[in-house]
């Protein structure tokens, strides 16, 4: 079943995909640095009248929960925040871009978080984000 991105159903399916990702489970095992938020910037042309975030409560290689939130204030307490416009997340979900390369190119921006920690966990960070490619997705602009 396909889920609309972003939505609560998509977020829940993303959490399931993270937990089904063997690479993430292995490389993320030592991760004890808190939740990660992936935020889609607001885009009124797509009906996104506010920033939309998916907060993943990841800990020791497991996603313990995920929530869909609206507005940057809602991710203020999240230790790691990655922000990108809708088109970029669409490329990530389709597996068209590598998230680490996209960060180097400024296509995904880590607006909050400790970069040295993220680099120490570069393989788990990549696996976390690319878990999204396993979620059957319908996009707002299609």
């Amino acid at each position, binding site marked *: 079943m396909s889920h609309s991105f972003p939505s609560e159903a998509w977020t829940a399916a993303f959490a399931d995909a993270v937990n089904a990702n063997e690479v993430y489970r292995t490389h993320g095992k030592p991760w004890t640095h808190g939740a990660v938020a992936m935020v889609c910037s607001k885009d009124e042309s797509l009906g996104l009248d506010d920033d939309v975030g998916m907060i993943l409560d990841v800990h020791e290689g497991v996603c313990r929960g995920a929530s869909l939130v609206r507005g940057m204030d809602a991710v203020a307490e999240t230790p790691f925040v990655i922000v990108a416009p809708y088109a970029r997340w669409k490329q990530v979900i389709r597996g068209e871009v590598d998230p*680490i390369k996209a*960060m*180097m*190119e*400024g*296509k995904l921006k880590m607006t909050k978080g*400790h*970069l040295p*920690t993220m*680099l120490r966990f570069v393989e788990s960070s990549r696996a976390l984000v690319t878990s999204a490619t396993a979620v059957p997705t319908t996009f707002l602009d299609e």
Partner: protein
Amino acid sequence: MEPAVHLAPGAENNGYATMVAQLLRQGLDERPEKKPTLARMTGRVALVVTDLGLVVTLAFDRGHVTVHDGFAGIPDATVRASSEWHTKMSLVELEPRFGLPDPRGAVAREVFEASRKGEIQVHGLLGALPLVLRMTKVLSVA
């Protein structure tokens, strides 16, 4: 003197430049014992990310670092490598006594091997060896 890391005007639009600046700032906050190393560094190193067509130049001036978009001035050394290798170079293990790359480390060995194969090229290494080794130390998050 307290180290200072600045982005040169225009560099804020280069995602890799902002990452390198963030990495330096947060890395020095986390490991203040690296600050004396930075205080001894003078010269320019250009980092060329071959697969993404990105270039940043780090201008070191005794505790101050300015991160430029593209080539800025004549670099003392130029490191050419793919985004994968640039990421890995920040994970090179350092031996504890002098903070030099530890040849026993798994990532350090991979990087040495990549250098031998020409996948990582350092132009000007002989003339700027201390600068390049010190840069490896201050950028490493391992």
